[in-house]
């Protein structure tokens, strides 16, 4: 066991747990448990908002899978990763103030609350709750696997015990602390990622003998590594560009990101978050993926892509520093898992249980159910992760794309097009998910349809279907209520 590495990681875990306990204490003073637990009473300022968005979004795929891919593919993959800079400003500008105002009027604490009030339709609620639970659960399990692998690589303990440690630490602070704990730990984790990637990048460049040395090594090995086209020339410009939809603008439709766009205090917080978010997401993505590329001459011959970051950190940094840096991917995973866990739990509790089964539940009852459900979902994910599926990045992207295809138009058109109606929304969600799954299997078998990423076609199809069906079943133009809806929750 390498205690120099383990001690910083342990300290990090302890801090995260303390935040959970602090958030739990703070919750006792609040009047509405559900708004506090699932959305932190909409009180976040700019820094926390930006960090929680970046950290939720930057997951195991960007921290282990992404640099791993950059290691084998080269600069082309860094170019692809930089499409994510858009997430820093696009989500907040598009959902922006309108979403903030409207969700306050609706008393919405989840994305589905918003859809429910906007479309007044049970099928919309059920369909969206189902897709959130299904897809995000898959994403969560993938992160669980990533977290356990990382702890296993770093400490040398068995996969199952690593999984156990990961589960326990995440479950405790999310279950007791709710959204506030998640957002605050996200902020700490975001800071860890920011500086962790910077330190590691510098160390790798030094170990490689400077930038020009590294690039001439890369060119000597395979000139394709420094082109935008990938080591075999396999990345077409069209394919890479289609990632603007998957990881750039489409992120607007991810429920775990959208819910954050209703959690901030005022316009000032949002404005600050725009700047901080863009800087942080761009900086982290650029550094992390460059580390992947630069590791190739420094540490050639790594077989398992996900291990590039841990191995190179242990190689180029002194143990204590490596431990601090490696807290970054662990932080990335925890901050994604915690948000997904809370979101799946909110779908089960708020959107299904309270909506359909027990609309007049008391504050105390809701508290018990929320915490119980959160814990149970986490434990189920733990059990599923014991026999993990192979490709981490794959599962994660599947969940990403599926949710984007389902939600992007019901959210965006629901906000900005007054003739958007429930028929359009239902048709669009069914089309989006159906087409995504269909095209996914087609692409698996025959190569990418039209040469673009799986998500592209379903997003356009669901737009067309949404508009046509909404116009066919034309109703009155929808106007948002002019005053807050009466509060029914206790």
């Amino acid at each position, binding site marked *: 066991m390498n205690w120099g590495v383990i001690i910083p990681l342990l300290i990090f875990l302890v801090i995260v747990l303390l935040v959970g306990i602090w958030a739990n204490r703070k919750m006792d003073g609040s009047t509405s448990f559900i708004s506090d637990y699932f959305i932190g009473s909409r009180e976040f300022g700019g820094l926390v908002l930006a960090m929680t968005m970046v950290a939720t979004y930057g997951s195991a795929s960007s921290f282990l899978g992404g640099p791993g891919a950059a290691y084998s593919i080269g*600069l082309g993959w*860094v*170019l692809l990763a*930089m*499409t994510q*800079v*858009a997430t*820093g*400003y*696009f989500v*907040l*500008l*598009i959902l*922006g*103030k*309108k979403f*903030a*105002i409207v969700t*306050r*009027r609706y008393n919405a604490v989840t994305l589905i609350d918003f859809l429910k009030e906007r479309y007044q339709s049970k099928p919309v609620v059920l369909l969206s709750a189902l897709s959130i639970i299904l897809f995000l659960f898959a994403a969560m399990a993938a992160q669980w696997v990533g977290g356990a692998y990382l702890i296993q690589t770093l400490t040398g303990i068995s996969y199952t015990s690593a999984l156990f440690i990961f589960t326990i630490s995440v479950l405790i602070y999310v279950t007791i602390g709710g959204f506030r704990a998640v957002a605050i730990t996200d902020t700490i984790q975001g800071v860890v990622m920011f500086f962790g990637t910077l330190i590691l990048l510098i160390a790798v460049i030094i170990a490689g003998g*400077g*930038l*020009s040395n*590294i*690039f001439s090594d890369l*060119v000597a090995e395979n*000139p*394709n590594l*420094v*082109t*935008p*086209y990938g080591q075999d020339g396999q990345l077409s*410009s069209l394919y890479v*560009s289609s990632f*603007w939809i998957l990881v*750039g*603008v489409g992120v607007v439709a991810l429920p775990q990101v959208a819910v954050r766009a209703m959690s901030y205090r*005022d*316009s*000032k917080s949002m*404005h600050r978050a*725009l*700047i901080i978010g*863009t*800087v942080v997401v*761009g*900086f982290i993505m*650029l550094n992390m993926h460059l580390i992947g590329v630069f590791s190739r001459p420094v540490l050639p011959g790594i077989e398992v892509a996900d291990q590039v970051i841990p191995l190179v950190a242990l190689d180029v940094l002194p143990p204590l520093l490596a431990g601090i840096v490696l807290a970054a991917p662990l932080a990335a995973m925890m901050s994604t898992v915690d948000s997904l866990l809370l979101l799946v739990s909110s779908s089960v509790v708020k959107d299904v249980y309270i909506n359909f089964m027990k609309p007049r539940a008391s504050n105390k009852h809701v508290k018990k159910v929320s915490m119980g459900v959160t814990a149970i979902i986490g434990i189920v994910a733990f059990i599923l992760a014991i026999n993990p599926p192979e490709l981490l990045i794959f599962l994660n992207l599947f969940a990403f794309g599926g949710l984007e295809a389902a939600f992007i138009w019901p959210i965006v058109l629901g906000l*900005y097009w007054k003739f958007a109606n429930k028929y359009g929304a239902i048709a669009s969600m069914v089309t989006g998910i159906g087409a995504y799954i269909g095209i996914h299997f087609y692409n698996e078998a025959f190569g990418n349809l039209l040469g673009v990423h799986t998500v592209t076609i379903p997003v356009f199809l669901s737009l067309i279907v949404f508009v046509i069906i909404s116009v066919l079943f034309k109703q009155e133009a929808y*106007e*948002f209520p*002019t*005053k*807050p809806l009466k509060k029914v929750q206790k």
Partner: protein
Amino acid sequence: MKNRNIRNDSRFNVANREALIGCVLAAFNILWWYGFAYGMGSKAPEEYTYILGFPAWFFYSCIVGFVVMVILIIIVVKFVLKEVPFEDEEEVDSL
């Protein structure tokens, strides 16, 4: 009478305008990124020029492109975006 101020909530006009700005920024971002990456990166790797150690296409597309976006966003936030309250007037609530 309850319809009186439905249509002219000026905050929604602000929001709509800012959503459009978001689209314009993203479009600009994509063009910059694509133009430099594939405009300068399509030639043979032996003919690449290097700036500060990086291949020129990558330097302009990803590094300068990122810095330019950050500057644009700071400008937009400071000079274009408007601060509006999110809460509705409480007096409306009294029936």
